[in-house]
């Protein structure tokens, strides 16, 4: 009986093999690096050194949380308007939304920098001297610009699946449009919001390119730190930071999923 049930799932075997070898094992190695020194001896020095990076971590958290919030505030109405338009228009809007994603993130970010830079397109065009690149605002703008579609798409998918009759039912039962929105539509699109938030927050908090370009080298985010450790060869500290960041992110995603979907969320990590 046992053997038979194993045979049923034999098709998953190559994947399980692959996942253990190339997902689990590399993460274990990260763990090993985090707890050893350059000579390979057990050491807590890397973990202890993390306290130096706490301010950087807070800054990353601050910028990415603001960017995520801005994405949500801008993205929800956008997703909602798209979901409410005609099927033909929906297709076109979604296409327009996805098209910039096909341009490499580096190019897009660079293009923003070229526009906003001190001697950039905007300042040349208007003959002004706004100082934008190098501020927190520019980095946040970059994050919002680059990751907005990740917020809009899942919310759109969720909202467009909500039954049209839900509006009628709600108003029939005496809900005003605003109340319907708050009490019916918003809760029903919660799973889209949650996945949108994760899809924006995770790349924002770990980015290093956006802060390099739009931060103008004036401040460092946690992603920059890891990248710098990688370039300078301080792999053990880099591994320790990665490990902590991964654990924090996986925990928060699990908590968010549990929060939104009850028991089902557990399976999706």
């Amino acid at each position: 009986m046992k053997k038979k049930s194993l045979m049923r799932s034999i098709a998953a075997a190559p994947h399980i093999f692959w996942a253990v070898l190339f997902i689990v094992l590399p993460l274990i190695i990260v763990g090993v690096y985090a707890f050893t020194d350059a000579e390979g001896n057990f050491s807590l020095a890397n973990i202890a050194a993390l306290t130096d990076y706490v301010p950087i971590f807070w800054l990353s958290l601050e910028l990415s949380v603001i960017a995520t919030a801005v994405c949500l505030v801008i993205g929800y109405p956008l997703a909602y308007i798209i979901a409410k338009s005609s099927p033909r228009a929906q297709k076109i809007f979604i296409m327009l939304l996805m098209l910039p994603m096909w341009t490499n993130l580096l190019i897009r970010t660079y293009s923003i920098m070229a526009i906003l830079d001190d001697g950039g397109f905007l300042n040349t065009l208007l003959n002004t001297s706004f100082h934008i690149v190098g501020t927190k605002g520019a980095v946040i703008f970059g994050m919002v610009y680059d990751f907005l579609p990740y917020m809009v798409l899942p919310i759109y998918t969720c909202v467009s699946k909500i039954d049209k009759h839900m509006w009628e039912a709600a108003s029939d039962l005496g809900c005003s449009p605003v109340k319907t929105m708050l009490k019916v539509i918003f809760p029903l699109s919660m799973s889209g919001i949650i996945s949108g938030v994760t899809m924006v927050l995770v790349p924002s908090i770990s980015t290093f390119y956006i802060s390099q370009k739009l931060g103008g080298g004036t401040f460092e985010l946690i992603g920059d730190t890891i990248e710098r450790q990688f370039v300078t060869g301080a792999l053990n500290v880099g591994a320790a930071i990665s490990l902590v960041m991964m654990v924090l992110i996986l925990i928060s995603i699990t908590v968010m999923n549990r929060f939104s979907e009850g028991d089902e969320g557990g399976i999706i990590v």
Partner: protein
Amino acid sequence: MKYASRIYLCLIFSVLYIPIFTLILFSFNVENSTAEFAGFSLRWYIELFNSPETFTALRNTLLLAVLSALLSTVIGTAAAEGIYKMRSRFIKGAITSVTNIPMMNPDIVTGMSMMLFFAAVMGIFKISDYNEIGFAAMLIAHTTFCLPYVILSVLPRINELGDSLSEAALDLGCTPVSAFFRVKLPNIMPGVISGMVMAFTLSLDDFVISYFVGPTNFQTLPLLIYSMTKKKVTPDMYALSTIIIVSVFILLIISNIRSGKRADENKRKRGAVK
């Protein structure tokens, strides 16, 4: 209300597209500047086509994207079928959780872990030159982060299809393997294809993981772009991006028109029966 939402859409989309249009504009700049437009020319396109570095990078990127899309689609589709058939909820949950790690994890962590892994592999097999395993490492890394997306796209289709068609095929004399290929696969094909397309684009677009794993002898476009943006970018990168955007735009339009036509046909067919 309608008016307001239109203005809102216009506003967002123009902000979204200003950098893209600027980029297209400056790709035709006669001067070597991305800030001042001095006049129209095709200079940067010509330069682009004369740059062997760019062409190698483009070829590498496409090769890697095609191979990792194929590999992840084959492994991922088989995995989805296997996961579907698993009885134990616990094992199912454990496997999907592990699979989803590269999707949930920040790319930078995945990239770091992959790099350390391949460093360990080099140590174990006494390989001194990373370039020897560089391509394999890139292929493995790309396939790994594409896998969850393929499974995520195929598994719901398999769940939706259920067992009835496979059982009918078995009943009519198919072996389990031929039942999968003759009946199940054709019916989950849309999911398989969209998974493959997603894998292809993810691989095409990936910078962070390639940055950590990439060897010096196998440069992809994003890596090339990165190394160029380290200095001041010349508009030939803009020219390349313009070509990519325009071709994607054309592809999207074609596929939209086609799917629109198919939908119309289906409607007509159904109408005829009634």
